[in-house]
């Protein structure tokens, strides 16, 4: 019931964003009413029941990937190389 999906902001009009889900053509609208600050086009939102809940933090995403690689002992790699 409460599936929340990441989606890319394509355009914004009056507190509502049109977003693309996955790489496909499907677009969804999301109210931005619950966000502390408006996102920018190209940013990623987590959308649930027609409302954006959060903006994805790119730097944090990169940082956790780095930490993950480090945790299994390949600090510089992507995890795919030995």
């Amino acid at each position, binding site marked *: *019931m409460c599936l929340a999906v990441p989606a890319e902001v394509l355009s914004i009009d009056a507190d509502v964003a049109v977003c693309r889900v996955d790489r496909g053509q499907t677009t969804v609208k999301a109210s931005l009413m619950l966000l502390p600050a408006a996102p920018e086009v190209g940013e990623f939102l987590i959308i649930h*029941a027609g409302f954006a809940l959060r903006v994805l933090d790119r730097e944090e995403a990169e940082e956790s990937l780095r930490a993950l690689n480090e*945790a299994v002992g390949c600090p510089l790699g992507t995890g795919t190389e030995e």
Partner: protein
Amino acid sequence: MSFELLEKFRDPALCRKILDKMESELDRELRFMEVCGTHTVAIFQSGLRSLLPEKIVHLSGPGCPVCVTHESEVNAFLDLAGHENVILATFGDLMRVPGDKGRNLKKAVADGARVKVVYSPFDTLKLAKENPGDLVVFIGVGFETTAPTIAATMKMAREQGIDNLRILCFHKTVPTALDALLSDEAINIDGFILPGHVSAIIGVEPYEFIAENYAKSAVVTGFEPLDILQSLNQMIEWRNKGEAHVANNYTRIVGEHGNPKALEIMYEVFEPCDALWRGLGLIPGSGLEIRPEWESFDAKKQFGIEIKESPALPGCKCGDILKGVKQPDQCPLFGKACTPANPVGPCMVSTEGSCAAYYKYKLD
């Protein structure tokens, strides 16, 4: 371009490394519970469940709003269906949830009740405008992810002067339920995979009691395989060191303090109350109810609805499953009298329910 970034959280080679690491570090059984329906589905769908070391016992707790909706709450909305001048609006998952005497919303529709499935509570505004002579009653179930969306809808209704929208408010909050689970001695859990999107709203702080009061670990976790594996791996490491922590592994979405704007809107409209959970019973302070200032939206008040203890569905073990005391295939009805096509209990109804996930991925 950013989809690629997200896909890195599925890197099979990295998953394998973490799995091997877990395998080598686990010397005892570890019982972990996830309390989010989307995690339940993610763990099965990605194939993780069959890859996890045998010493890991995976339990799905009270993480699906449909599953935790109390029998008495189900009967309350079934009673409302068919009421003169009432249009019920609901998320689709509630349509087949069984109530007493074999009732459900689908059957109510066949008998003439007006029930409208909506994708977003936002859609109820249009519905209310189009039907000025009727009351549109939205069935508000769900946790801190959903409650703010309903609060925002109520605010918009007020701004737009829509006065025929009502909310039947059955919202529940996650940390209070975890507290109740942990204080029950029959329940044996080593660590929690904490819900990602509930936490996006409430942050990490409300879970700190898990380590402080119960010396158990818990990690806020995203929904990709690497997110889940990394959280488990951390909990194993901590346990081996005899430590317990609450941590956030989903920092790309979850900030320390959650989403303050959403929290503000949620608490402007709702306040904490005691709530009945299916299988867990009454948990003080674990629900949300409409504040007196927003009473004109309150369907419970308007229709004099009382929610009280009522008998569980005969034979159904959903309660034990939500507590992690039993696994779905330990229910005598599982796969026999109870299937997704013909569910006896709610855990078999929702796609995020443990019994439905078990059925779909184990019997395939």
